[in-house]
Structure formats: structure tokens, C-alpha cells
């Protein structure tokens, strides 16, 4: 059985109480994303700045145990950027400390009268005055608070109202997408710290050891993880050359898909320049993050891609500097880079390195041109009279995989519940990284069901709060064994998959209640009319609109949605969600 103690914090009254979800709720939700959705659903129609809309921090059932890479946490609320539901899986040590402090999650409501910190240490919870810290960068705050355990905080951008503000964990792990940092700042919550000294028991320690061994063996056999050019040796930057080689590197605000100077701005170039060492999340032996010898964190793949190719920037220092600014100010690097690219296309200005970093500071502090840019590319492009130049889905800017190079990715962007996000269906796994096997990336054949299955599976992974990267090597089969060993429940991979379907479908229900429909499950028009950059024996044609719509229709059928992308009554009943509809 999974026992989770959830701490409810009302910032308005400074009220605290502990609640334990029933075993039935835990079985239906698993933890993490699933449990956060459970708490969000009744309030989802509240606006993002409504103090009664909960901001949720949920660990998973494996967090704090010896199950590999399960120390992540899910943060969830409604997105100020898209208006849709939004959850982020974030690494670091927050979840691990939370479980060791005897808690499974935190539900934050209310609004403090002034910037505030919440400090949790095992059984005790206290509030602290953070009035003088609103303008503090996340890196400095982490440095000053880290003796109090794990730190989740927002930077100045959130307090200035940037719609793509992030919540930073332990200084460098970003809950980046969708502007959850702005939700946190709107409650006058500057930071949370948590420290725990307990342990998280497993019902069957031998079973957990065996499952962990299976997971490690499969991870070792996966070139994308432990290979010479895998995430352990090269970090997520390893994907940079791959996207370039496959002619799907978003370039010049997605006008092209190949950036010639990319060959000199890759993982190798960063390593030569800054001689990094590897770091990473608690409980993970891959350690895919990088810190240069001067102590500065190096950008991850998405950031490298958007602050080089997307902006046509060839200055390596500017890429690293942009990453540092975004992390310290607390802004999502993907949305920040893509919004600047949108600005560059609309204004026709080629952004120099100093303009890039200057505009980022203007956005973070909401001054000059940065005021409008801080609202995200969709609002900016609308205001400028060029809505088609915002390369976003549901208002969330697209990351570093051009959809013309992978049809599953094109469909996955459109159907994602949080908008332009690659991580819900993660088709890159089979379309590019060939895991579990390769699929034809230029074909929609079979992709509707593949996307749906992957969305369900990733909903499980984010509910277990495991790391998606591990699934380049292993499958739910091994994590189901770990889950069973920890909880004492006898649960198969397919049982979890079914639970994942329910979790993801509930997100569709929440979005539909907010007015999202097929009109929003779409890609920017550019992808249907303009080709990518051919070369290296690869033709990158526009996405065929008819085929895309047919695949989306098949996805709706498989997912249990009607032609408008709205949940079907019979599916709601089949999944036992009628009470929530």
C-alpha cells in the first residue's frame, strides 16, 4: 500500500494541515503527476492568479527509495502562458528530501501578504519573511539556503510578471515550462526548503534490489544513456549533433532546419571550452548535467539549440550566458529563446550576443521591449499583427525538434495537454533515438496509437516521478517491479499503463472544461506550407496537412475523444471518471 502524507499550506492564514489520501485514491493516481491532477481538478476553472487555485508539489511512491532515478518531483497548476493545465517533472533533491521528511506532497493555496518562504524540516513547518528577497536570483538564493536542504524558488522574473517564469530547484533544475513560477510568485511565495532525515521503507527490499539491478543492466546496455556519446558522457547536449545530422534543428525561428555553424557549437565545443564535470539528480547514476571548471552550469540541449540555431547566433559564450541569465532570473529557456526568435523575425533584427543577453534582462525585469516579450511569443506576435510568427502550440513555444522531421513529434506537439511540449509523447525516442525500435519518422502510419500509448506511459513515469531518460533503456516492466516491491501491491506494467491512461484522460477533461478543443490541437501554419532544409540525402518536406488531420482524427478515436477533440461520455464512464465530469 502507498501511504502519502500531504501537507496543505494556506498562505493567507498560515494554516497547516496534514491529510492522507485513501488507498483507493493512491491506486488511481500513483503519486506525482497523477496525484497533483487529483488535487487540481476540482479547482481547475479558477484563474491562474486565484489564490484558491492550488500549486502542487508531489513526489512519487518510489522517491526516496533505492529505485534508480526516481527522486524527481511533479509541480502542477494552471499555466499563465497557455491557460491550460500545466505540470513539470523536475529533478534535483526536493522530492527525495520531502519523502525523508515524512511527506508525499505539498498543496499550496492562499496568498501571503508579503514575499514569504516556507521551511520544512522533518516534522516542523515554519514561515519566514522573504520581503527582501523578491529580487534575489535563484542561484544566490540556493547558495544561501542550501544548508536547509533542498530549495525550490522563483527568481525576479516571476515577481515582475513574466509568463514563462520557472521554478528552480536546487539552483539549476528547472520546472521551466508554462510559467508555474508566476503562479508561485502570485502567492507571494519566494521559496520552499525541505530537509528530511527519515527513510522511506520498501515492502519487499529484495524485490526492489532485483528490480533496481534489472534497471541498471538495461540502462548500461542503452547507447543513448551509457554509450560513449550517451547522456552520461555528453549530457543532454549529445542530442545537438543528432538534430543537426537529421536536418531537424529549428533554425531562424523555424524557417530552416539546419544550421551550418552547429558543428562548432556542440557538446564537444562546450567540453573543450569549459572542461565540465558531471552532476545530476539525487539517486541517479547517469548524472546528465554539466558544470564547467569555473563552477558555471552548462546549458542543456534545448537551451543550446534555441540560443544558437533558432537565433542564428554563433557565439558560444552568449549561449552559456543566456542560460545563466534565464536560470538565475527564473525563466524558461525554451520559451525565452523562441520568443526572442519570434521578435527577431518580426522586427527583422539579427540579434547580436549583447542584444540577446540585454533583451533577456529586459524581459526578466519587465522593462522596455521586454515588457511585451515577457508575455510570451503568442501575445507578442498577436500584438505585433503577426500571429503566425509565434512558433507555439496552445501558446507554449516549441522546443528543439522541428516537427517537419518527425511526424510522431508533429502529432505529439498538437495533442500534448500542456501545449508545445515534446515530453508528453516523446516520439524522439523511436523516431530518432531508435528506442525501443526505430519507426519511420517521415510517416504518420501507426503514430496515433503510438502517441497515445506513449502519453499514457509518460503519465505513469511522471506519476512515479521517475526520469524519462531511463526509458531509452528500460520499460515499465522493470519499474512496475520496483513499484510492486516498494508498495507491496502486485502491479504489472499493463496495470500501470491503464492507470496512466486515466491520469492523462483526466487532463484532457480538465482542458476541455477550460475551452480547449481540436482548434487548439494544431501546429503553426508554417509547418504545413514551408519545407525544412534539405541536405545530407534528407528531404524535409512540409507536413502534409491532410495526413496530419487524418492522424489527429485517428488519435481522437484511440484516445476516446469526439471529432472536436472533446472527451466522449462513454470513455469517461469506462475510466471511472464520471464523478469528475
Amino acid at each position, binding site marked *: 500500500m502507498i501511504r502519502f502524507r500531504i501537507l496543505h499550506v494556506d498562505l493567507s492564514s498560515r494554516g497547516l494541515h496534514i491529510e492522507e489520501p485513501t488507498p483507493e485514491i493512491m491506486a488511481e493516481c500513483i503519486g506525482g503527476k497523477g496525484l497533483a491532477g487529483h488535487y487540481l481538478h476540482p479547482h481547475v476553472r479558477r484563474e491562474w492568479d486565484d489564490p484558491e487555485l492550488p500549486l502542487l508539489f508531489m513526489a512519487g511512491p518510489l522517491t526516496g527509495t533505492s529505485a534508480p532515478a526516481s527522486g524527481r518531483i511533479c509541480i502542477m497548476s494552471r499555466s499563465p502562458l497557455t491557460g491550460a493545465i500545466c505540470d513539470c517533472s523536475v529533478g534535483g533533491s526536493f522530492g527525495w528530501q520531502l519523502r525523508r521528511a515524512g511527506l508525499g506532497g505539498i498543496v499550496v493555496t492562499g496568498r501571503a501578504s508579503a514575499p514569504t518562504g516556507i521551511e520544512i524540516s522533518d516534522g516542523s513547518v515554519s514561515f519566514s519573511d522573504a520581503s527582501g528577497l523578491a529580487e534575489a536570483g535563484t542561484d544566490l538564493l540556493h547558495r544561501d539556503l542550501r544548508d536547509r536542504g533542498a530549495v525550490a524558488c522563483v527568481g525576479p522574473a516571476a515577481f515582475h510578471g513574466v509568463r514563462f517564469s520557472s521554478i528552480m530547484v536546487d539552483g539549476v533544475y528547472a520546472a521551466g515550462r508554462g510559467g508555474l513560477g508566476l503562479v508561485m510568485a502570485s502567492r507571494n511565495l519566494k521559496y520552499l526548503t525541505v530537509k528530511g532525515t527519515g527513510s522511506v521503507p520498501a515492502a519487499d527490499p529484495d524485490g526492489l534490489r532485483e528490480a533496481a539491478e*534489472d534497471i*541498471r*543492466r*538495461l*540502462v*548500461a*546496455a*542503452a*547507447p*543513448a544513456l*551509457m*554509450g*560513449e*556519446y*550517451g547522456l552520461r558522457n*555528453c549530457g543532454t*547536449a*549529445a*542530442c*545537438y*549533433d*543528432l538534430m543537426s*545530422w537529421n536536418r531537424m534543428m529549428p533554425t531562424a525561428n523555424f524557417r530552416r532546419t539546419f544550421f551550418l555553424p552547429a*558543428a562548432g557549437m*556542440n*557538446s*564537444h565545443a562546450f567540453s573543450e571550452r569549459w572542461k565540465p564535470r558531471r552532476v545530476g539528480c539525487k539517486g541517479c547514476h547517469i548524472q546528465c548535467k554539466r558544470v564547467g571548471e569555473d563552477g558555471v552550469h552548462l546549458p542543456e540541449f534545448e537551451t543550446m539549440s534555441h540560443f544558437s540555431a533558432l537565433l542564428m547566433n554563433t557565439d558560444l559564450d552568449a549561449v552559456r550566458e543566456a542560460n545563466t541569465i534565464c536560470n538565475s532570473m527564473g525563466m524558461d529557456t525554451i520559451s525565452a529563446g523562441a520568443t526572442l526568435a519570434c521578435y527577431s523575425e518580426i522586427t527583422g533584427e539579427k540579434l547580436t550576443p549583447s542584444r540577446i543577453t540585454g533583451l533577456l534582462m529586459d524581459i526578466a525585469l519587465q522593462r522596455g521591449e521586454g515588457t511585451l516579450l515577457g508575455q510570451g511569443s503568442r501575445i507578442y506576435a498577436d500584438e505585433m499583427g503577426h500571429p503566425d510568427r509565434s512558433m507555439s502550440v496552445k501558446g507554449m513555444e516549441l522546443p528543439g525538434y522541428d516537427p517537419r522531421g518527425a511526424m510522431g513529434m508533429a502529432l505529439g506537439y498538437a495533442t500534448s495537454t500542456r501545449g508545445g511540449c515534446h515530453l508528453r509523447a516523446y516520439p524522439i525516442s*523511436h523516431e*530518432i*533515438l*531508435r*528506442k*525501443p*525500435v*526505430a*519507426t519511420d519518422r517521415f510517416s504518420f*502510419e*501507426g*503514430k*496515433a*496509437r*503510438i502517441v497515445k*500509448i*506513449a502519453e*499514457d*506511459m509518460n503519465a505513469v513515469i511522471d506519476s512515479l516521478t521517475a526520469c524519462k531518460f531511463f526509458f531509452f533503456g528500460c520499460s515499465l*516492466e522493470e519499474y512496475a517491479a520496483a513499484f510492486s516491491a516498494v508498495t507491496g501491491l502486485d502491479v*504489472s*506494467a*499493463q*496495470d500501470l*499503463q*491503464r492507470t*496512466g*491512461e486515466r491520469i492523462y484522460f483526466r487532463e484532457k477533461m480538465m482542458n476541455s472544461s477550460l475551452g480547449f478543443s481540436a482548434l487548439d490541437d494544431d501546429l503553426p501554419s508554417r509547418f504545413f506550407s514551408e519545407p525544412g532544409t534539405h541536405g545530407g540525402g534528407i528531404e524535409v518536406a512540409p507536413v502534409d496537412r491532410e495526413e496530419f488531420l487524418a492522424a489527429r*482524427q*485517428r*488519435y481522437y*478515436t*484511440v484516445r476516446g475523444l469526439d471529432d472536436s477533440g472533446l472527451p466522449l461520455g462513454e470513455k469517461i464512464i469506462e475510466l471511472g471518471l464520471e464523478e469528475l465530469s
Partner: protein
Amino acid sequence: MRGLLDKYAAKLVTAGLAEPGDPLLGGLDAELEWNREDDATPVLEEVIGGMGINSILFSRPAEPYRTIIEHLCRGEVSSIRPRDAETRTFLHDLPVVRELAAGPLLEKLRIRKSVIVPGRGIVTWGTVSPEQAFIFFSSVCFACFVKFFSDLLEERRQGGLSSLSRTVLARVLEYLPEYPADVPPLMSGPFGKEEDVYAAVAQAGRLTVENGLVDSFFGNVSLKWRNTLYISQTTSSLDELEGCIVPCPLDGSSCVGITASSELGAHKETLSRTGADAVLHSHPRFSVIMSMDCAEDCPDRGYCHIRCSWKRGVCGVPVVPGEVGAGPTGLCNTLPAAMEDSNAVIVWGHGLFTRSIGDLNGAFRRLLHIEGECRDLCISMLMEDH
């Protein structure tokens, strides 16, 4: 989906894993499609409906696999536990159910990638492609083949084969295809153009499959040209390497090799230690079987695949421990050193690596020769007993 279903149905037949007309493949997108009609489709439809998968495969295995699998499933066996390293890593064990009914199939398929139904066939599935179902099917056949011969070798050591074992062995040997006697030369180096390098790698892969030197079409091939190593991609099929060869600069200046074979590190290290230009690796069945046959009374028994401390060899070829990939017990830690002293090395329970200079001719011929020797040795050891 129909194209993929037909492709893998045909591939099962050409690989000698199923007989023509036997493979039944279903693929599900919005609609469920089958490659042909069959009485089993209602049961399999129920299975696919009860799982988050997109493809299913059911077929009788061809001979000699059918005889072998029936033999291993006799009695009350509820699961077969293969000993070879590859299957242990990816499939764990092979459940057996006694009837082709949705309930028992679902119970096992929810936790494993295959189910054997004695007298009927093997059921496997995929989440993104029928190719996964094909691979699992092939792996079950391979694992059972290896286990069958390994068990017999063990039985022989324990005092001799039973009459049942002898009868089954005789039957299996009747079905074994002839060993290829003469193979034409491969493309020869030195190569002047990059496209010839790609073609040479693809040709070596294809001939390895055509000559029956692989399990599931898997293995890997690499060839060094100028400052780049051209290596087959992970999960690529050795008989279809065109478009699946990745050029990895040897100075490490690019990470495109992230999709290279999981043995890239072992290939690179082998080449740098030996001065060779080419490495070929596959899973020839008898080399794998013989690598696992060990009479030593050893404290590491059960862990031979990761820490065999004896200096062993088969047919003059060293045998070393090592798991797939680059973990602490990975073969990347054991293979390259062994390749310094020998142009061929067998990794315990996994497969055979060979190397050569200039092109892949030497590596390919060595592979073919060693597997032939291992096959002769294995059969003669078992027949001695008759």
C-alpha cells in the same frame, strides 16, 4: 500498418523462424488490421484490447525450434529460464501457458514480452512497431535453441544423454540447415570513396544474416575510414543497414554516435589497441552455446557472464565475460584487451567478435569459420555419446 505486418510476416519466414502461411500479425492504430484471417484473431483481439500495445504476433515456430520448444515445455513447466546473457537482459524469462485463451495470455503478457503456448506457438507484442514483436519472437527461438544444446551438454557431463534427449537431438539435427561451405569475397579495401565504405558495411551485415550467423538479425559492424568509424546503428537489422550506418569522428568532435550500436566503445577501443580497421560482431548460435559450456567447479558459477575468472577458450578462441553495453560489468571492459591477442573473441553467452585490417573480409571469414568449428565441436561432443 499493413505494409509493416506483411514485411515482418515475410521476414519470419526468410529467417527460418516460421513456415509460410503461419505468422499472424495484428497492428492497431485507430483500427485493428491483420495480415491474414485466422481462427485465433478473436482471442488475440481480446489480448490487444487488454493491453497498451499496438501490435501482436502469433505463430508456430519453424523447425527445429518447434521440436526444441515442445521439448523444453514438456511436463508442468510454467516458464523457461534461458541462460544466455542477451535474453536474460532483455526478456528475463519465457512464460509458458497451456491454452490459447485471452485470460492466461493476458496474465503473462502483462508482465513479459512473450508467451509460449505448447502445441500452438509463440505470442509476442510491440508498443510502437510489429518489429518489436518480430524481435521478441526471434529471441525466444534463439534462447530456446541455446538452452536446449546447453542443457544437453550439461546432461552429457552429468553422465550421458537420456534416450529422450538422444531422440530429440536426432530430430533437431535433421532439421539443422547445411553449414555454408563457400561464400564469395566481400568488397575489398582500400576504399576511395565514402559511399563504398557504407556499401561495404551494409554488405557485411547482409551476408552475416544470409549465412545464418545471427539471432534476430542483430549484431554490429564497423569499418574505419580516414578519421571516422562507420558503424551500424542501435537496433538496426544487419540485413537492412542501408541508411542505418552512423559516421562517428574518431576525435570525438561529434555526438551523432549516440544512435550507434551499444558496442561502439568496444569497437573503437579494439581498433585503437590493435591497429585493425574493421570489427564484426554477431550472435552465432553454436559459438554462444560453446562459450557457456564449462566443466570447472567454480565459485563464480551463475555469474559467468560478468565475472568468469578462468582463462577459457573454445576452438582456440578466447572466451571473456561481459554484459551488453558500457556498464561496470560491460564487455567494453573485457573485450578490447582480449582482442589484442586474438583476432576473434567470444563474449560468454552473448556472441562472437572478429577483427580485420583494410576491409571486412578477414573478420567475416573468421566469424564463419569459428561458428562452423563450434557447431562441429558441439555436435560431435553430443554424438560421442550415441
